[in-house]
């Protein structure tokens, strides 16, 4: 039984090693200049992270990501909860959100840059937009599914409407909200990378494409490993926190849902 738990813990790690091995074999058999092996790419990682400028750029990106994610979550959760509990609020916002949903948020980058310049504000705003929708959506679904009877008993105990939202709806919808935040977190990273790829100013996405333009294929693949590692690490870290917060509830998916 012990070994089984150990295996479950190690399985993702084994999967990583397996994927890298597949990559290694594929690169060796293809023997293509523009497709370095996994080992070569891993060897190129220290030189990227050793480059002071690149490191500062990446850290600045991460700071913007954290700010964009934080503000988006703070705004989206109350909005989603309100939409879930009030039919009017829901029908007010739903069509607007449906129109915005299929628009790629990172694609707004050129327009926003036109208005607000290329500074932190534009980049953070795009991340904010990218994170908001899934968090609103999941908070909405979570609040909608809260049992009416729980709210009735809350009202009977003399809780006001706002108190009911904070003391009953919020905790009851928490598992669903956290699912939304988990999606949002990966999305923040994706939006950040994509907008940097489009704006081509600085950051991880920019390093990636500069290397591509200059034919430094080792660097390209090393950057892919770094970004992929960030995604997997952020998701795993969030998942651990989520498990602590909602021990009482079974996770709906024990594998993460992510999308751009």
């Amino acid at each position, binding site marked *: 039984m012990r070994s089984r738990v150990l295996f479950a813990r190690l*399985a*993702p790690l084994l*999967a990583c090693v397996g994927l890298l091995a597949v990559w290694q074999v594929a690169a060796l058999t293809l023997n293509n200049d523009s497709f370095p092996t996994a080992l070569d790419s891993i060897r190129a990682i220290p030189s990227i992270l050793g480059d002071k400028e690149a490191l500062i750029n990446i850290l600045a990106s991460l700071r913007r990501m954290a700010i964009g994610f934080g503000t988006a979550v703070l705004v989206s959760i109350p909005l989603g909860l309100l939409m879930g509990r009030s039919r009017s609020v829901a029908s007010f916002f739903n069509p607007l959100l449906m129109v915005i949903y299929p628009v790629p948020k990172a694609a707004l980058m050129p*327009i926003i840059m036109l208005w607000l310049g290329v500074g932190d504000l534009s980049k953070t705003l795009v991340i904010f937009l990218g994170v908001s929708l899934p968090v609103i959506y999941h908070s909405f679904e979570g609040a909608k599914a809260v049992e009416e009877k729980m709210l009735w008993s809350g009202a009977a105990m003399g809780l006001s409407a706002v108190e009911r939202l904070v003391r009953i709806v919020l905790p009851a919808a928490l598992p669903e909200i956290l699912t939304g935040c988990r999606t949002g977190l990966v999305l923040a990273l994706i939006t950040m990378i994509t907008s940097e790829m489009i704006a081509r100013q600085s950051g991880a996405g920019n390093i990636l494409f500069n290397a*591509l333009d200059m034919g430094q294929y080792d660097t390209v693949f090393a950057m892919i490993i770094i970004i992929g590692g960030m995604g*997997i690490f952020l998701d*795993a870290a969030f998942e651990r926190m989520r498990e602590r917060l909602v021990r009482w509830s079974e996770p709906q998916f024990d594998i993460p849902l992510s999308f751009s």
Partner: protein
Amino acid sequence: MNGRDATRDVLLGLIPIALLLAIWQGTVSLGLAPPTLLPPPGLVFMRMAQLLATASFNQEILATLFRLFAGFSIAVVLGIAIGLAAAVSPAINAAVRPVVRVLAPLPKVALYPALLLLLGFGHESKITLVAADALFPILLSTYYGASTVEQKLIWSAMAAGTPPREILFKVILPGAAPSILTGCRIGLVISCIVVFLAEMITSTDGLGHVLITAARTFQAVDMFVPLITISLLGLILNGLLQAVRSYLLRGFPEV
């Protein structure tokens, strides 16, 4: 829900969209933003109507749609197949689970440069990226739907003489259909987003490319048009999928 309520909901929903347009128009009319940065909405929609009448713009839309559908279809087929297999076979589950756990949170767009190097700058790399991004929501909701099909439904079919290998298609697939279609809906929106982004990053055609070309020449009007087009495309495709969904799921409660 009665008709009166429905009308009220629609009217209520139009308010923020109308408000948005009004603020947009107001900002321009009051001279708060120069038209070169923020063209008035009337101009944008006129330009859009103009472009929609040209063959070249329709070509761009078709290029985008082709990549979108190709990538989305691959994701649907692979997602449903792997999701079902992982739900019914413990061996496949043990193999798929950790791999999915690693690949799902990986920002797929970071793979795009690698795809460019391996598959070239044509359709293939973009289609692969769309498929890779749309795959996971479909796979995960198929897996979730298939592994929560009610045991008694399976038993009922077995008792009626269904051989075990047919159970998959006669009970599990239809039983998981609501969840699968929800996954497809998420996958479709993602496909819209990703195809556009891929075209923005490197392309010679498609709606994303139209936006980038306009951005290089600071043509604000032409930057809005592809964005509104992709939003409309998303709405239309979502509506179509919704129609398919309510037909396929006509027996299920709460569609």
